[in-house]
C-alpha cells in the first residue's frame, strides 16, 4: 500500500479529500491513496514512478499522455484517478514484453518514427491500438487513427512509414 505524500503544511485550503483505489497497471496490481480528482497522468508518473507517459499540454490536445484504459486509448491528463478504481491500464512501459519490442516500437527505431521522442510513447500506444483494431490500415486510416497525437519534429511522414512497416511484420 503506497501512501501519498500529504501536504507537509498544517494548512489546508478548505476540506481535503482522499480515497483508496486499487487498479492494475501493466498487469501489476496497485493499491494507492489518492486525491480523487488527481489526474491519472500524475498518479502514474509520481506515485507509481512510471514516467514514460508524458504531459505535453494538459488539455487533451496533444496525445503525449495517451494510455490504454480498459482496452481503449484515452488521454490520461483528462481522467480523474477516482474513475480507474478496478480498471486495467497499459502504459508505454507495458508495450514491450520482457525486452522484446513490439513491432511498432521496432519500426519506429528503424524508420525514423521517433526524433526527440517526447510524443513517442503516446504515438506508439495509439499506433498499437490502431493495428489491434485494424491490422491492415490504409494511409488514410493511419492519418485518422493518429490524428489525436501531435508531433512537432517529424512532420508525420516517417511515423506513417513506421506504422506501415510494422504492419508488414
Amino acid at each position, binding site marked *: 500500500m503506497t501512501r501519498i505524500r500529504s501536504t507537509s503544511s498544517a*494548512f489546508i485550503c478548505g476540506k481535503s479529500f482522499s480515497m483508496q483505489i486499487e487498479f492494475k497497471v501493466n498487469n501489476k496490481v496497485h493499491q494507492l491513496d489518492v486525491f480523487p480528482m488527481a489526474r491519472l497522468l500524475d498518479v502514474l508518473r509520481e506515485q507509481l514512478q512510471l514516467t514514460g507517459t508524458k504531459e505535453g499540454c494538459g488539455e487533451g490536445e496533444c496525445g503525449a499522455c495517451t494510455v490504454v484504459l480498459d482496452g481503449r486509448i484515452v488521454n490520461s491528463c483528462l481522467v480523474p484517478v477516482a474513475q480507474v478504481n478496478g480498471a486495467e491500464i497499459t502504459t508505454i512501459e507495458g508495450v514491450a514484453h520482457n525486452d522484446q*519490442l513490439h513491432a511498432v516500437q521496432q519500426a519506429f527505431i528503424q524508420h525514423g518514427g521517433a526524433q526527440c521522442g517526447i510524443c513517442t510513447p503516446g504515438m506508439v500506444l495509439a499506433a498499437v491500438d490502431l493495428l489491434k483494431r485494424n491490422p491492415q490500415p490504409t494511409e488514410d486510416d493511419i492519418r485518422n487513427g493518429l490524428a489525436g497525437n501531435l508531433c512537432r519534429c517529424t*512532420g508525420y511522414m516517417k511515423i506513417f512509414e513506421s506504422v506501415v512497416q510494422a504492419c508488414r511484420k
Partner: protein
Amino acid sequence: MNNPIGKSFPRKEGRKKVTGQALYVDDLSFPDMLHGVTVRSPAARGKIKNISFEGDLPWAEFTIVTAKDIPGANYVALILNDQPYLASDFVNHPEEPVLLLAHKDKYLLEEARRNVRVEIEEQPAVFTLADSLAQKEIIWGNDNVFKKFLVDKGNVDEAWANADFIVEGEYETGAQEQLYIENNGAIAIANPSDGVTVWGSMQCPYYVHKALVKLFALPEEKIRIIQTETGGGFGGKEEYPSLIAGHAALLAWKSGKPVKIIYDRAEDMVATTKRHPSHTRHKTAVTKDGKLLAMEIDFAIDGGAYCTLSPVVLSRGTIHAAGPYFCPNVRIHSRAVATNVPPHGAFRGFGAPQSIFALERHMDKVARTVGLTPEEFRRRNFIHEGETTATSQVIRERVDMDHLLTRALQLSEYHAKREQFVKENSASNGRFAKKRGIGFATFMHGAGFTGSGEVFLQSVVSAEATAEGKVKILAASTEIGQGTNTIFSQIAAEALGLDFDSIEIVQPDTGRVPNSGPTVASRTSMVVGKLVESAVMGLKQTLLGSGLLPAQYTEADFKNACAEYLAKFGSLKTSSTYQPPPNVYWDDEKYQGDAYGAYAWAVYVAEVSFDELTYEARVEDFVAMQEIGRVLNPVLAAGQIEGGVAQAIGFTLFENVVWKDGRMANNQMTNYIIPTPADIPPIRVYFEENAYAYGPGGAKGIGELPMDGAAPAILNAIENAIGVSFNNVPLMPEQLMAADERG
C-alpha cells in the same frame, strides 16, 4: 563495418525513446526536492508599485526569491545583457518574471502563485513593429533600435535610371510559437560552498553556464550544466533555458534544497520566446529581359522587450534577404526594434524564413510585371560559381539552381498541373469548387555562424578511448531529435573504421564535455561533426604513433591497442579545436564578404487547393528538393526536411498568435493550431550531393533550410489558384475570404 556515412543507421538512443525509458527533466526527482513557480507581471510596462501576499496561506513555509536575493548580476548574459532575471522596479512586458516561489507541495504552490498580487503603475506601451519604428513611445534605449545593419553593394541609386521596370512590394510575417511538445523545465541544486548544478531541457549547455556564472558571481568550475533528454527545441531552447535555469538555481540557493521548475503549456506559450515578426519592403529594378539591376530592401523585425538574440536574427535575415540570385546593386537596410511583448528569440531559420518569404513572393511579382513566368525569371537571375552575393561573397562552389529547378518542377509535375488547373479552375458547374494552384520558391541557407562567428566560438570536441576499445565523444552539441548522437557516431565510426556501436556519445555536461558551441545555426553536423572527425583521427594517430596499432587494423586490434595504451599511460584523450577554412574573409563593419562557409541550395514546390465554400487553403502535395553537400543518414536527413516543412506549413496557414495588450491570448493548444496528421500533405523529399570540402563526409548544414521555402511557395500557389495576391503569413481563411469575389 565500412563506410557508415550515407547509411540510415537507426537512432542511437531510439530504444530508450520508444520504450518510455528516456529521461526528460520532469522525469527526474531528487530527495527533498521542492517545486518552483514564477510570479509574473500582469501588465506590459510600468513601475512595480507593490507586491502583496494574499489569501490565508502559510507563507512562512515558502521560499520566496526576488531580485534582491540575486548573489551576482541581475541580467541574463547573452549579447546586450539588458534582460533581468527578475524585474526589480520596472517591467517591460506582460508575464515578465518578478518573483519566485518554492514549496514541497505542488498543488499548494499553485494556489500560492495565484495569491501573489503584483501591482503595476502602468506606462504607455508599444505593441507593434510599426509603432516601434514610428517611435510612438521610446521604450528601449534612445530609439527602440536593438541593432541595425546596412549592406551596400554596387550603386543602387544609379540603377533606377536604367530600369525598364521598377517593382515594389511589402510583405509581413507574424510571430510563431516553437511548440516543442516538451515544455521548458529545469532542476537545480545550489549552495555557496558546492556551487550550482542544473539539469534541464536545453540546446546549449554552455550558454546556460555563461549566464549562471554571472548570476551567481561564481568561478566557471563552480557551475555545472547538464542536458537532460530534450523533447524538441527548434531554437525555443537556445537562449530561454538560461532564464529558467537561473530561476530554479536561485530558489535552490535560497532554500538549500533541490528545486524543480516545469512550465505548463499555457505558461510556456505566453511567456517564452517566439519567432520575430517581420516587415519587409522591396524595390526592384529590372530590365525588360528580366535581368535584376538593383534591389533595395528594407527589413525590420520585432524583438520584443529585451534584446536577447535579435542582432543575430537580424543578421541572418539580412544576409538571406536577396536570395540565390546575382544582382550587381543591392542595398539592404535592416533594423531590429523593441516592443513591450515577451522577448522574441531563436526559431529555426532565425530571420531567413522572414526575409526569404518576402523575397520569393516578390520575385513572382517582378516576373509577372516583366511578363515572364516565375520559372523563366528565376533562370535568368540565378547565381553561379564565380558570381557575388549581396554581401559580395564570391560563390566558390558548383551551384546549379537551374538543374534543381528543372528537377523539382519535373517531380512535382508543375507544368502539366499548371495547364490542367487553368482548365479545371475555369470550368464551373455553379457549385462551390476547389480551385487548384501550384507555386514554388528558390532559396539557399547558409550553415554555421555568420562571418567570423565560428572563429569566435573556438569550438572544441574531445574523444576518449576506453580499455574495451570503445570511443567516447565529448561534445556540447545536444541531441534534441535531429540526430546528433547518431550522426556523430557514424562520423566517428567511419573515421576510425570501427562499428557504429563502438562509439559512445557522452551526455552533454559542462563538467565533462568541452564547449563545442551551441546546437543552432545548422552547424552541428557540418562544423561540430568535422571536429568529431578530427578528434577521433587524433586518437587513431596517437595509437598508430605509439606502435600499438597496426596500419591496417580490425576492431579487435583497436580494442587491444586501447587496452595496452591505457595500461601504459593511464588515459587516451584528444581534443580538436575549430580551424576556419582558408580564404574566408568577413568585414563586420561593412557587413561584406564571406558570410557563410557553405550554403545549401533548394527549390520547394507546393500544390494547393482553395475551397470556395470555406475559403480554406490546403497544401495537397509538396516537393522539397535540395543540394546539401552529402547525405549523412538518409532517414534522419529526410526527417529533418519533413519536420521543417511541416512547421513551415504551420507558419503559413495555421499558426496565428493572437495578441491582446502584448500578451498571447490563444496560449493553449486548443487555440494555437499546429497541423495534425490529417492536415499534412505527402512531403516528398529529394537530395542532391555536392561535397563541401570542410564538412564531414562533404556535408553541409540542413537543420534550418526546410523552414525557408514553404511559405512563399504556398502563397505563390494560392495566387496561381485564385488570382489574388496575398503578402503576409499566417494567411487565414478569414483573410482569404475578404479577397474572394463570390458572396
